[in-house]
């Protein structure tokens, strides 16, 4: 007689090592789990709530400057180093891990208009209101040595911005004209100007940079020269997308940011609005997916690269007009320099847990993220995920601007209603802000 005996394969229920999780046999048959959606919805709701509870983006403030912070620069090789120049001509090097100033030097008389670190990280350039370009060593001078620049170039006019090539010993400045400099020479190797306009900001495209010495490549630096886009208001700064060679974003005095495709400059690719005052600075995340903007309205906003509205707004009680902003090269932090002499360190994702995560922690984070994404359209979840606190001044201004916009659009609608059909073409938001494109 054959006797049937219960037999189980130990592989099915015994874990391989002691550190593994206990194996739980499950039946994944969907008919046995009628409430899966409901349960996941609740989980998503909880995840969203927890995200908001843990959203504490502010990490540290670096104080030490004696005037407003006017410019900042990232170190290309070291994540923990940043440089900042203030309005009194002082330049400071900071160690972010220790949150302290490492070195202070009086770089210029008057404003430090721009700082840029050479691609190798061994030296940096500063420009100031005293019409000087100075090159400094990154290392702190030894005991008894004087704090002196390696090079000083006396310019003819005031420089407004500076940027260094990402691979060659070439840098570019803007002012009354755009100058391209070889590091070894005291006069610009090329300079460009167009009419009498002074140029506000000049940036190398980090992706597509050909040596400017070879041939006609200057248009690659700045749109205003290559193709003048005249907008209703002044553009303050621009930043190239580091992952997409032809997209750049410029921040404007009219509270908006505009992302352009450099091939089609006749209208912006996306208009990003949410700020309630002039936008002063913008910087892309190194992944090229988002960018952060600093505004005169004392707030920082993070925009997705193709989203019209911000996904995040940062502010603190004491932060005044934010003048400069940088996104750290490891995509984790944001640095903002503001009028009230402080540099602030923020998390790029407000609710993110910093430091190493255990694998299970990581899995949980991923799962929660996925849930939030899955249920993002549900009203409760959306409401909680999108709720942000705003200072009263900004809040009321937001409201005011909304009312103004509505009124304007209503008026336009009414006028159009009474105009001859076809006589008033509909102008889209994108087209509205570009006056002309000059070739």
């Amino acid at each position: 007689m054959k006797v049937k005996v219960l037999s189980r394969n130990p592989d099915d229920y015994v874990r391989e090592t002691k550190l593994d999780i206990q194996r739980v046999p499950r039946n994944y048959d969907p008919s046995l789990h009628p409430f899966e959606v409901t349960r996941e919805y609740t989980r998503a709701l909880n995840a969203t709530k927890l995200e908001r509870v843990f959203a504490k983006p502010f990490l540290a403030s670096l104080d030490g400057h004696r005037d407003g912070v006017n410019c900042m620069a990232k170190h290309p090789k070291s994540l923990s180093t940043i440089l900042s120049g203030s309005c009194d001509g002082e330049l400071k090097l900071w160690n972010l891990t220790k949150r302290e100033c490492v070195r202070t030097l009086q770089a210029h008389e008057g404003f430090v208009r721009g700082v840029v670190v050479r691609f190798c990280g061994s030296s940096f350039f500063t420009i100031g209101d005293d019409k000087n370009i100075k090159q400094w060593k990154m290392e702190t001078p030894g005991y008894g040595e004087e704090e002196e620049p390696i090079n000083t170039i006396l310019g003819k006019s005031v420089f407004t911005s500076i940027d260094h090539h990402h691979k060659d010993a070439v840098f570019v400045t803007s002012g009354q004209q755009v100058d391209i400099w070889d590091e070894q020479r005291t006069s610009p190797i090329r300079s460009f100007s167009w009419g009498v306009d002074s140029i506000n900001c000049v940036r190398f495209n980090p992706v597509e940079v050909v040596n400017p010495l070879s041939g006609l490549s200057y248009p690659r630096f700045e749109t205003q020269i290559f193709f003048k886009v005249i907008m209703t208001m002044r553009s303050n700064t621009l930043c190239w997308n580091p992952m997409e060679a032809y997209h750049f974003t410029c921040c404007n005095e009219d509270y908006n940011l505009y992302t352009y495709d450099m091939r089609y400059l006749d209208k912006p690719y996306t208009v990003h609005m949410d700020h309630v005052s002039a936008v002063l600075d913008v910087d892309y995340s190194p992944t090229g997916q988002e960018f952060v903007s600093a505004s005169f309205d004392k707030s920082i906003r993070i925009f997705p690269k193709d989203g019209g509205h911000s996904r995040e707004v940062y502010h603190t009680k004491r932060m005044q007009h934010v003048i400069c902003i940088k996104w750290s090269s490891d995509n984790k932090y944001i640095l903002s320099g503001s009028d009230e002499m402080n540099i602030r360190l923020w998390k790029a994702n407000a609710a993110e847990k910093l430091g190493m995560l255990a694998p299970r922690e990581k899995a949980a984070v991923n799962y929660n993220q996925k849930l939030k994404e899955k249920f993002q359209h549900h009203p409760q979840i959306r409401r909680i995920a999108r709720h942000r606190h705003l200072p009263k001044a900004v809040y009321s201004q937001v409201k005011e601007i909304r009312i103004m916009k509505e009124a304007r659009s209503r008026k336009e609608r009414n006028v159009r209603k009474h105009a001859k059909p076809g006589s008033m073409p509909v102008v889209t938001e994108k087209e509205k802000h570009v006056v002309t494109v000059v070739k």
Partner: protein
Amino acid sequence: MKSKFLDIKLMIKTPLNYSECSDDERKHCRLLEAISSLGGKTRKKLTERSEASIQVSEFTVNAEGEGDKINLSDLIGTLDKAPTALTATKKQLKNLEHNHTALDTPLTRKETEQIQRVVAFEKTSKEVSRWQSVVVQNQKAEQLVFPLNQEPSGPKRMEHVVSGWKAQTPLEQEIFNLLHVNQQPLHNPVLTQNEEATMKAMSLEEAKIRRAELQKVRALQSYYEAKARREKKIKSKTYHRVQKKVMRKEYLKRFDEMVKTDPAAALEELKKMELSRMKERMSLKHQNSGKWARSKAIMAKYDDGARKAMQQQLEVNKDLTMKLVIPTNEEDEDEVAEALPDFVNDAEPILDPINPWMRGKLSTEPAAQEESNCLVPPAAGPGDVKAGDGPDLLREEEEQVEETEEEAILRGFEERRKLRRAKDAVEVAPVVMEESEGKVKQLITTIHSRMNCQHARERADPCVSQGEGPALLEEGLVRVRTLEDMELLGQDVSACEPAPQTTQTLSTEQTEPQSATKQADGKRKRKKMIDPNEVLTKEAKVIKVPFAPTAVEDVEDTDEQRFIIKEAFAGDDVISDFLKDKKKQESAGMPKVVDLTLPGWGEWGGGGLQPSRSKRKRFRIKVAPPPPRKDQKLLNVILSEKRNSSVAAHQVTYQVMFPFTNPAQFERTIRAPVGHTWNTGNAVQKITAPKIVTQLGAIIEPISREELVKGENQAVTGKSNLRSDQGPQQKRRSQQKKKHKHKKN
């Protein structure tokens, strides 16, 4: 001498910028010219820059010396010493001088610059456009890992570190010789030359596809073998008989085809058949003389099945012993007609209400089941049918000897019909679920009225397109710090936003057309407040069928239609139908008594034994009656109690969210669970993989040109570019390969 001296002086004195010359200086220049002209020979006057500078003002260029012409031959005047060689060139130059085709004056600086700019713009934009493919690729990628060009971790091979390495010691040389001779890999130990060749010959994707195909073929083969083995093992004679019959039929069919396609082979077959027939005739095997046949003959008096079997055998006998006639085409057609009886195409065979067996066979769905059918999860419907297809069918065939082929065909049709019905059920299911369960499960409404849509648009920011809607932050003065705050926030929504709720009601009405129309009807009736007796006479006529598509048609048509409808519904008792409906709904809403008695628990159990009365009394739990229905006192109204207003706050009110194109898509994604409670570990990992992965503490450089080259290569070969397709190992390999290529170059 004098003039030379003066010239030198002039050179020295000329300032950088003529534009800054004062009038005095100009006069002085003129004076100098006058003096120089005194010295007999006329000299070419050239303005020169005295100082090197990048910027040359356009105002420095003056028109001095314009009148003087220089002969081209003057230019080679200094080469007088070799006159023989120069005569030819002089001639040429003279010829050139005779040509009076003057060049156009150059464009102004502004114009030239503009042209240059435009050309440069076109050039650069073309160049930049090369990135398009890479950019699009990255946008589509399921996962991006930053930094993009990660070096493989771990120790590197010596060849990578030291560029000019060569085998030097005799031992090394010997080893390398050996490797060379055997065509073993020198640098990359992973792949041999042959392997690399195969890799080149077939891409990974192709190989995968091919492997999958082979696997499938192998699996099919094994299934087939297993099936054959199983069938061989079956001892049942009846089964084999049935099988044989099927085979014979198939054989005949094949033969028919063969007659058409290959007459020679058919003739051969025919001979064989003839032979077998002759054998049969000689053996008298199928006569009614066998043991089995005799027993059946006895049974035939009492048993229907036996009689049938006997008849069948007789038929077979007749078939076999008959003289064979080659079937013609006409007969074929007849056969087909026989194979498909007419009533198969009928919507539903009229069932014999008395004979339950008949019903069991031909229609599997009793009327009672129809209602519950809707509540069965949609996936289960087709699955059940499929399960019935396979082994069950075999078993049935074994058991039911008397089942004829016709019945089998019929069953096939039946199953197909069932499948069709199941599909319908799938379509109906989501709606019904919503109706019946009223839970958060179905959170999206399928259809929206146009009005709703407009409303939503008006609420949104006027300058923002709908796609951007969800991205908007809701900024307020309230700081949310704890979970309790969050709850309050939620309450706020439901309290201050009545608009979505109303839209919700609208949408639910549309998703549940039946109940909604009933409600609407009810409301209409309530407004009129008509006496039921009056309704009895009038309502039956005026009943406006809400689904009637004829409402749009012409007036005459509608009149006719109405007349027809009137006629059609003349005998209908609408009122009683309605009341019945209402009663049914009421009874459905009443709680049922829960019976928790366990037979055999604490007393004897078994067939025919009932649990004791006291026990039954004790374990039958009566549920408290629900609150009175809202339509209790309203005679002509049915108010649905299924809608749960507390759920409305959790339901999605938008018509279509951005990445989705239709609500069904959205529903599907919502229905698919993500968590590990419902999925295997690997699946969860795959589903929840984040879109962007960054390494802690790694500096992310801007995208480099190498990526562009990579992207272009991929675009040329037409491989899929998703990063997720490429495992880390493969990536590493490709990188290594690239390095080798560089080295070879």
